[in-house]
């Protein structure tokens, strides 16, 4: 049942991709054609399949201890998902650190469900051979914040510290190519090839960028989380591999999520 649903979604995705008019530069600019493509995508978002699977995973007893995520506190009380993502990252007293959604899910898997940390982090990003439970869980949890204004609080000193560190990391140039996040995301109306880039140093850009992740990626046939977004940006920056749910990933997420405050959360979305 589940598998045939996924297959159907893939078929839809392929059909959409094939139906895209190739930008020729004639009869309307390439940007206009891409905008048409983006609008065509909005008609059906296969992310719903990940949301359904994630809701089932959320409620089932899991791990050596057979505990469900309904015991997992995302900041609004055990098991409460409604609106929780719009207030993440936050400081969690039980973990004594700042966590984003994904590092929190890992924490609950280790501390409540009895997984080892290595097992909890083993499969965060799906590939054609295996699905990822975390991507489905993230789809479900984030979908329960759709339309909720982003409201990340820096009241806790650890949050202020992570925000400041995330800001420094945003400007950190390194690697063989001298790239920082800011190289591509520091100015208005820039693009790589034909891909528009949000200016994440301004409120409007941060809101647009942050609130549209996670996203179903048509080109990959998978739902990708914000941790994946950071991982793959760094890969293209020619950095080494960003470790899943690492402190730096949480610091950068804190910086970007707080800058998106006020905007209604709009994901899971669908992207190229």
């Amino acid at each position, binding site marked *: 049942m589940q598998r045939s649903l996924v297959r159907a979604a893939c078929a839809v995705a392929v059909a959409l991709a094939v139906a895209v008019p190739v*930008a020729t*530069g004639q009869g309307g600019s*390439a940007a206009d054609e891409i905008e048409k493509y983006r609008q065509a995508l909005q008609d059906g978002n296969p992310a719903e399949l990940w949301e359904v699977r994630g809701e089932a995973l959320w409620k089932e007893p899991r791990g050596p201890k057979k505990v469900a995520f309904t015991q997992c506190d995302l900041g609004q009380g055990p098991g409460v998902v409604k609106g929780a993502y719009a207030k993440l990252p936050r400081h969690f007293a039980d973990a004594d650190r700042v966590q984003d959604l994904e590092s929190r899910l890992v924490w609950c898997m280790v501390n409540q469900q009895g997984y080892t940390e290595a097992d909890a982090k083993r499969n965060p990003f799906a590939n054609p051979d295996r699905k990822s439970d975390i991507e489905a869980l993230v789809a479900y949890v984030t979908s329960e914040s759709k339309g909720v204004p982003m409201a990340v609080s820096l009241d806790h*000193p650890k949050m202020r510290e992570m925000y*400041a*560190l995330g*800001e*420094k*990391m945003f*400007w*950190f*140039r*390194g*690697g*063989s*190519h*001298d*790239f*920082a996040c*800011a*190289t*591509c995301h*520091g*100015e208005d*109306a*820039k*693009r*790589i*090839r*034909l*891909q528009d*880039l949000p200016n994440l*140093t301004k409120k409007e850009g941060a809101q647009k960028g942050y609130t549209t992740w996670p996203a179903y990626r048509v080109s990959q046939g998978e739902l990708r989380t914000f941790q994946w977004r950071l991982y793959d940006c*760094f*890969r*293209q920056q*020619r*950095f*080494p*591999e*960003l*470790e899943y749910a*690492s*402190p*730096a*990933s949480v*610091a950068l997420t804190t910086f970007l999520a707080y800058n998106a405050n006020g905007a209604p959360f709009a994901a899971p979305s669908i992207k190229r």
Partner: protein
Amino acid sequence: MISKPFLWVAFGLAAAGCATMPSDAERQAQAAAMLKASFKENGQAKLDRLDQDETQRACSALAGKPPSKELAETLEKANLATIQWPADGKLVGDWKNGERIAQEGRGKQFTDDPAGPVGGNCYACHQISKQEISYGTIGPSLQQFGKLRGYNDEIRKYAYGKIYNADAYSACSNMPRFGQHQILTEQQIKDLVALLMDPQSPVNQ
């Protein structure tokens, strides 16, 4: 005469300031350390990619502001000194190869084959040949590069040097230092100079 209570308040504020607000340099060092602890090496992308050189460190600290005149001069001088000019004195290669190098986006990512092709990925950020409509806008358009500036040795040398080490001409440029960081070979840089400077290149049509 400064009153005692005032001094106490001032001392308290200073202490509180020190406790909650590390200096900018301390924050930058803290962020660099956290980054180092949050990455792992993968294939050709080793952890030393996170070890900043002086140019990277100084430019990061600016957080998007332009460098002061003094800093710009210092960085440009230091980067200019890294440029190795071709021993044969020739700066211009084959523009057809240059076009392929400008199109090639692979190289240096941990997902790239270390023995595979390495390109400049120039179209990611620049408009170059008219025929290619899929170009980025982070850098300026390079259409008509030679035609507008003149087909002379001075501009050829500038083009070679700029590709080799962009920070030698514009400190804290967004452009990678392709020669300095051994991303491209001397011959590849010559071919890119040809793409920009050969009167036959589509760039100059």
